[in-house]
Structure formats: C-alpha cells, structure tokens
C-alpha cells in the first residue's frame, strides 16, 4: 500500500524537477538573448527549486520511502520573455495548489512533521509567484521593449 505522504512528496519532487529545468532553460535563453539580469534571477530560482527537491528527498527517505525522480512531466518553454513569465506563472500556480493539497494529505495522515515542513514552502512559492506577476505586469505597463531594456547588462 502506497504511503500517501510519500506519494505527495514524490509528486512535489516531480513538479520541482519541472521547475528546475524550466527556469534553467529560461535562464540560459534569457542570457543568450542579452538579458543577464533576468537570466540571473531565473538561474537563482532554478537552484532554489533544486534545494527544495533535496529537502523533499531527505523527508521521503526519513519516512522510509524512495524518492522518485522519474516523474518528469512536460513543461513549456517561452519563445520570448513575456511567454517565459507566463509559463513560470502557470507552473507556480499549479505548484501552490499541489503544495496546499500535500499539507492536507499530511494532516489527514497525522504527519505533523511533514505538514510543518511543507507549510512555509507555500508562502515561499507565493512570494515567487508575486514576483513573477509583478514582472509580467511591468511588461504590460512599460511595454516589452522598455521592460527588456531594464534587463540588459547596462
């Protein structure tokens, strides 16, 4: 019988792996397009997501499960910066829903420790989402060209 908490954590690991890859591809594209500031932030987020994976993997192992890194669903690659931001927003929105569901699963299973581990991650992802939405809003307010001018190395 599968442990619902381990299963939920493995689901989160899958989402985080998508996030690591998506942000990293977007970072390298943004760098290649000449937007090192945005590239640096995307790269930083990618590494933050990787650190989350490590936390979830450690927890799965502590619970006697096996971290599953095979669940890598498709993710979307933006062909320009607004599309990159839209893809990241969609990913984070999904991740927050999944995290909240995982907290409920942990609570239902009486696993307070894992629930407490996941709870602060919700706020972290919400902060991330807020930053992304702000960037997307800036693109709309300033226009794409002006926003992107602010992301160059100058």
């Amino acid at each position, binding site marked *: 019988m599968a442990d619902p908490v381990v299963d939920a954590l493995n689901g989160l690991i899958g989402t985080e792996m998508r996030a690591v890859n998506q942000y990293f591809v977007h970072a390298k594209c943004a760098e290649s397009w000449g937007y090192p500031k945005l590239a640096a932030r995307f790269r930083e987020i990618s590494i933050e997501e990787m650190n989350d994976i490590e936390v979830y993997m450690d927890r799965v192992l502590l619970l006697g499960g096996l971290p599953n890194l095979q669940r890598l669903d*498709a993710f*979307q*690659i933006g062909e320009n910066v607004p599309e990159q931001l839209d893809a990241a927003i969609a990913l984070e929105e999904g991740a927050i829903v999944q995290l909240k569901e995982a907290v409920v699963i942990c609570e239902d299973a009486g696993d307070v420790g894992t629930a407490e581990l996941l709870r602060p991650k919700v706020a972290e992802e919400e902060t991330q989402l807020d930053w992304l939405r702000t960037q997307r809003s800036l693109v709309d307010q300033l226009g794409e060209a002006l926003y992107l001018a602010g992301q160059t190395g100058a």
Partner: protein
Amino acid sequence: MIVCQCGPVSDTTIRDAIRSGAHTADDVGDVCGAGVQCGTCRPLVERMVDEAMEQVGPAGRGSGSTHG
C-alpha cells in the same frame, strides 16, 4: 511557447496543424512532428486537440476551419 522540445514545435504550429485539419494527436504528429519522439509532451498535445475540438463542436470537425 514551445510545447514539443524534441522538434522543437511551438503551440502556434500545433494550433495551425489543428486548424488545417489535424483532429487527433496522431494527426498533429504527422503534420508537424509534435509529440512523436520522446512522447513527454503528448498529453499536452492531446489536451490542445481536445480543447480545440470542444470549441469547434461535432459539427465543425472535418471542416478544418476553426479559430484559434
């Protein structure tokens, strides 16, 4: 937005394929190559086809004249 990274194939190309008469994920693969190599994006391609077909409705299938 790039949907199929193997191609690569964008969402625009996939929607164009659907508009031009590809009404299943297999059809889309035949037309533009999306979802036929590693298969990871296949669920996404299927969802795009389903959504497009829902918008068109049964009467529109086969006409190849949907809006995206």
